[in-house]
Each structure stands twice: as C-alpha cells, then as structure tokens.
C-alpha cells in the first residue's frame, strides 16, 4: 500500500539564487521548487492550481527558461537561478508587462498572472516583438479561467510598446 508511512523526512540544504539574491535554504527533501519557494523562502507569489503540471500557474524561470515549479525537485535546484513574479519589479517600478497587465485587464482574479508574467517576460527577452501567434503559443501552457486570454494578449503587446518607450527614454 502506497500511502503508508515511510521514514521521517530528511532535510535538504541547497544554495540557490532567487530573483538575483543567493540564499541557503533548508527544506524537507521531498519538496518541489514550488513548495520551497512558497513555504520555505516566503515567496508565495508563485501559485498552484493542480501540482501536476496541468495548469501552468506555478511557472517560474529556472536558469532563464520557463518551467513548472511543481515538477522540479527542490534538491535539483542547488546552484541554479530562479526568477519569480516577485523579481519582476525594478525597485518600486513595475515591469512594463506588469504595468500593461494591470492597465489593460490582463489580470482579473490574478491567480494565473504570476505564471503568465514570467513566461511572457521570457518571450519578450527572446523575441523583441512577438507576433500574436507567438504570444498565443507561448502562453498555451497557462490556463486562465477569467479573461478569455484576449486582454492578456493585448497586455503583452502593449508591454512590447512600453519596453520600447522605456528604452527610448533611457
């Protein structure tokens, strides 16, 4: 029988860099990156809707790539770089994606938003001006039940414009 108790948890200790800050963290070794972030690093911005890789709410950037943190073992994150929604702002300034999502209705209940934002950020870094089809494809791994996605697409497109404006300003 599979749910019967097994040996008491051993803890794991790793060092990882989250949003540019290196930390050492101690956690129960069965935990996924999602649990480590939320429960052991006080970063609850990353959400979960299934914990099985079926919804996209827990997406984070791991070594620069969007992945689902619910299916990454904490013990496999030693020495790696993680970026979560908490790391999108620069100081107190919103990232253009955050601004656009807030302004254009890209976030309603806000629960899928962190996963979408980090995934979209990676897209903008890789492709300066993505097409609607590219946005659609990249966000096909993030379920949203509120918006019908259209205001999300528009928010990403607006963020591209705002990124350009910020560049021009600086």
């Amino acid at each position, binding site marked *: *029988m*599979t*749910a019967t108790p*097994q*040996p008491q*948890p*051993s803890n*794991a200790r790793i060092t990882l860099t989250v949003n540019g800050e290196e930390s050492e963290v101690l956690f129960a*070794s*069965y*935990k*996924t990156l999602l*649990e480590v972030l939320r429960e052991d690093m006080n970063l609850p911005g990353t959400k*979960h809707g*299934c*914990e*099985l*890789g*079926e919804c*996209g709410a827990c*997406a984070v950037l791991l070594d620069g*790539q*969007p*992945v*689902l943190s*619910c*299916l*990454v*073992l904490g*013990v*496999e994150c030693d020495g790696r770089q993680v970026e979560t929604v908490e790391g999108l702002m620069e100081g107190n300034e919103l990232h253009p994606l955050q601004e656009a999502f807030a302004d254009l209705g890209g976030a309603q209940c806000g629960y899928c938003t962190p996963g979408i934002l980090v*995934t979209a950020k*990676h*897209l903008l870094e*890789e*492709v300066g001006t993505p097409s609607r*089809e*590219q946005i*659609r*494809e*990249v966000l*096909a*791994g*993030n379920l949203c039940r509120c918006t019908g996605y259209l205001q999300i697409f528009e928010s990403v497109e607006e963020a591209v414009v705002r990124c350009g404006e910020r560049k021009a300003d600086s």
Partner: protein
Amino acid sequence: MMRLPRFEYRAPRSVQEAATMLAEEGPSGMLLAGGTDLLPNMKRRQQVPRTVIGLRGVPELRASSNGSGLRLGAGLTLNELCRDPRVEKLYPALFQAAVQVATGQLRNMATLGGNLCLDTRCNYYDQNYEWRKAIDFCMKKDGETCWVAPSSSKCLAVSSTDVAPALMALGGIVRLVAADGEREVAVKDLYQNDGIHYLTRRREEILTDVLLEPSAGWRSTYWKLRRRGSFDFPVLSVAAAAHFDGDEVTEARVVLGAVASQPLACDEASAFLVGKQLTDDVIQEAAGLASKVGRPMDNTDFLLHWRKRVIGEFTRYALRELRGEDMTEDRVRIARHQLAAVP
C-alpha cells in the same frame, strides 16, 4: 497541495555511475529525467520509488552529434530538440511530434528519453490515490482488474508518447546502457503491447541516445489528435515516413500512436505504399489498411468508436502531406496551432 512521497535522492555524474546506482537500487530505484512524467505519478502514488536517481547532472545525456545521420542525447529537452534546425529540416516527424507535446514550459523540462519511456496512460490509472482506492485500484497498480476490459488478462493502458511513433516511422534506434554492458535496439523493438510491461528495456538499463539514419530521400510527418491545442496527450497519432524516387514510394513506414499499449506499425499499409505514387486512391486504400490496425479502448479522452473511425482520416492527412500537399490549413484546424518552435 499534492505532495510527493518521501524518497531518497541520488545524483550520478556519469551514465556509468547512474547505471551502477540503478543496479544497486533494484526495483525500488527509478530514473528521473525531466520529471514531468515521474513526479505527477509519484504525487498520485502510482509510482513510489524509494530512491530517485536524478539524471540532470549527467552531461553525456545531453550531447548530440551528426556523423552519418544524427545522434541525439536522451537528456535533451523537447524544446532543445525542436530548436535544433537539423531536427526540424531533416526529420520533420520528430520535430512535429516533439513540438506538440504538452506545453512550452513542460517541453523545457521533458526530455527525449523521458517521452520515449513515458508511462502508459489510462483514465483508471492516472488518478489520485484516493480515487483509485474508490475503484479498488486496477491491475497496473495495487489492484487486480483491468477496468477497461475486466476480462482482459493484461493491462490495456495506452502508449501516449508522441516521439516514439515518429521515431519508429523514421527508423530510429536507441542505445540502452546498463552497468554490465550496452546494446542498441530499434525503437519499434523498444515496445510491447502490454500496459504494464510496455518497454522491452530492462529495469537496470538507461536509455542514453537516439540514433537516426541519414534522411536523404525521406519525407516524414506526424499528426496528433487531442481535444485542445496544448497540454493534452495524444489519443491518436499517425506518424508516416516514406522514401521517394521521384513521385514513387520506395520505402514507407506508417505508425499509429495512442491506440494500443505500444505504438503500432501499420505493416500492411506501409508495404502497400511501396512502388506506388500517392494518388488519392492509393492514399484511400492505405488509410483503410491503417485503420484496421488500431484498437482504441475506452480509457482516454473522446469516444473509442470515434477515435477508431478517424484513424483513416488522420492517415490521409499524413499521406497527403507526404506527397507534398500544403496541409497548413488542416494543421491549424486539427492541431489548433502552427507547429512553430517557440523561443
């Protein structure tokens, strides 16, 4: 939140070390590559290894090279595969299969080897512990009966890998390494039609590479049926590859995915195509032959009768594409997206 069971984690640095660990651990050790298959199964308590052997620290598994043909490390992620221009240009079936797996985030994690070894799937099996308890479990895990067909003596869980049918059509070979030696097996011989023992890989072997023969003169394609444009596993797929001399087919392989516990080679249909041009009539006839092979069961999305019925239509899509027809519109309609690699 669903939690993983407790386990011990080991991180080998080489294939040899991993193979040794696997041998040491015996049946209670399992390999972890991308984690997208094993970890959900562990959370649902379908698979509860005492020891997880993580392969991400094994650099050999991520190498690829092109001597004659192409050698792809089993540890490459599906997105790495999709971004490799050689894969997209020379082995379109593999590209199309890989690019349609799950979602972008999952393709950044899931590996070629992981998808080839993907656990078979079934609506009675891919359920939480509590759910399976409510049906008194099933043959594949903790129970006795195959609820898909209670009189069946073997498990009928469905082979749900996308890349395996594609690689079978392409005539791929895999390399399996154990502590005491290694061997090469054709992808088609990696599988057997049993939902529990679906791999001929021995427990102590590690799938390390995929080898593809040179693609000159070959065309290939992969068509996948699923409800939605992302996330979903295939519930039917058709992979087809043909070698052409002018318009005439000199060699062909048509393979069905997700309609049995292994990918099914449609030998009759493949043989029928040889020596022929892919006219409408020939395609129609071949599609009929392919349809006879598939035996979908009622354990995936969609009704089984319908899945059975559309095998012919999906085979036609594949063969029409092989003869050079522009199938983009049908692709968008069926696959709901453009099959372009994403960054």
